[in-house]
């Protein structure tokens, strides 16, 4: 049991967050095991994105604690959290449209020392790595194109690739399959599996159940700001509380 706790990359313990009268998160707890792919599902408005924002420093939580590899990150800023090794994508893909694809890749490169900030944005080894990652997601050909000219699916791939350049330990994906064609979804799932085999941990918010059930070993279900069930896909699917949340509860 002790070992299991050690193996948690992220531990969210009883956090709460309210926006005025709306309680977006209420005593929400979730542990993410190192090397796992965890799916986070739940009806719209159940607090999934708020939980993402809390973990990545965009929302200050009202109470509770969030730890990354044992250290509290509840008070950290987004840029500090990224530097620790937590990368994220956004529900609506966010890239830098007026920079080229290659420039986009370099934004997330982390350098040691402040003096290095004023040397060239594209050092040889950084460029090599950027091109490798573009290869990995299959958009190397477009490296000199302005990123705003990419299709929606390609933007998702780019956003995915530029997070990888900083060697994150865990990646939080907010609806990676949203608005993307089915073949691209399979392609993306393959990339995720490959990175997972290399030891990367994933937390994925997704509405596409097929995608989640095929990819994730663990599935957590959110409802009204809380995790109501966690387990394998099959366990979660047969959980009455989950059925209630999705199909409308209130049956006494």
């Amino acid at each position: 049991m002790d070992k299991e706790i050690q193996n948690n990359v992220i531990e969210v313990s009883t956090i709460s967050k309210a926006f005025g009268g709306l309680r977006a998160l209420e005593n929400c707890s979730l542990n993410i095991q190192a090397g796992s792919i965890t799916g986070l599902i739940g009806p719209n408005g159940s607090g999934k994105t708020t939980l993402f924002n809390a973990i990545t420093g965009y929302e200050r939580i009202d109470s509770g604690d969030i730890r990354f590899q044992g250290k509290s990150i509840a008070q950290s800023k987004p840029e500090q959290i990224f530097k620790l090794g937590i990368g994220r994508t956004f529900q609506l893909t966010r890239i830098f449209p007026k920079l080229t694809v290659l420039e986009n890749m370099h934004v997330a490169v982390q350098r040691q020392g402040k003096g290095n900030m004023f040397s060239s944005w594209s050092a040889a080894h950084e460029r090599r790595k950027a091109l490798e990652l573009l290869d990995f997601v299959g958009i190397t050909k477009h490296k000199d194109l302005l990123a705003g000219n990419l299709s929606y699916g390609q933007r998702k791939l780019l956003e995915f690739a530029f997070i990888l350049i900083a060697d994150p330990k865990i990646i939080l994906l907010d609806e990676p399959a949203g608005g993307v064609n089915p073949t691209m979804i399979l392609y993306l799932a393959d990339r995720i599996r490959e990175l997972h085999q290399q030891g990367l941990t994933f937390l994925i918010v997704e509405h596409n159940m097929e995608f989640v059930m095929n990819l994730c070993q663990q599935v957590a279900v959110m409802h009204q700001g809380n995790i109501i069930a966690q387990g394998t896909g099959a366990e979660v699917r047969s959980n009455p509380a989950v059925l209630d949340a999705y199909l409308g509860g209130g049956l006494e």
Partner: protein
Amino acid sequence: MKKAESIILLIILVFLAIFPLIFSNPSTTSVAFFAVIFAVAAAGWNIFSGYTGYVSLGYAVFSGVGAYSLALICQKWNIAGGYTPFAFVLVAGLIAAVFALPVGWIILRTRRHVFVVVTVATLFIMQLLAYNLEGFTGGSAGITLPLPSWTGDFFNMPFYYGALILLVVAVSVSWLIRHSKFGLGLLAIREDEDRARSLGINTTMYKLIALMISAFFAGTVGAMISYFTSTVFPAEAFDPLFDIAVALMAFFGGVGTLAGPIIGALLLETLQQYMSLQFSTVGLDLILFGGLLLVVILLLPEGIVPSLFKLVSKMRASHESTPIPSSSAESTDSERLAVKEGKNG
């Protein structure tokens, strides 16, 4: 395109270097001095506002601080007119840069439209302070700077070449920043600040450093102009028209580009000086100037430099035998790849 821009800039700088040797008439070199010093201002403005997208209409806050710094330094230390005050122009720039730290720390808590309004407000606060801190600034009577002993044809030369050196420095710094990791971070802030944060960029620090570099150039510009006119008054040092002029020059030439703000400043300032010389008796200069700006904004909304480059690449594309497919229509590599993999799987 980047290379073309650098070459254009080099040509401009070489032209500016020999300009007074060809046109040595003092009334011409005086116009040339203002054109070059405004080019420094526009380039400096561009380092912060152009690269980060934080449009500032309070740039005169820092040029005013530079102007008063030089005036006070010369007054307190009894510095005589000559070449010495030019050395203190750099000190005035540094003072303006340091001054930008607390100012930036406060005003950079806002974004977009609010930021613009706050910069304007800051400017008027500074102007009011200059009027009212009489013991320090001399109030509305202003401060007189030492008068250089140069006469006639030579008078403008030290100022002109001093401004040109500043311009070379401003261009070099702009170029270095644009090609650095720091500059890429600034552009990322312009595109999507929150996204930049989630990629590990300390946006607050980036913006502050950019503002300080930008303020340095504003400070030197303010100091140079005040030494040239030998006076500094609150209304001229903290002049909202200066801000609007500098911002317009940058937009006119192409905001965020290397050469744009400099080309914009050289053209607009020359034109404005010429028009006020020719038509100022009836106030026609401002109307003509405003009308011209409207026409340019209608025809070249992105500014001269980006519009020209677009035209060139369009012409090149039409010359090539194979038409370039538009990016939206092309079926993309990764998608095709995905189709293949999907079929295999």
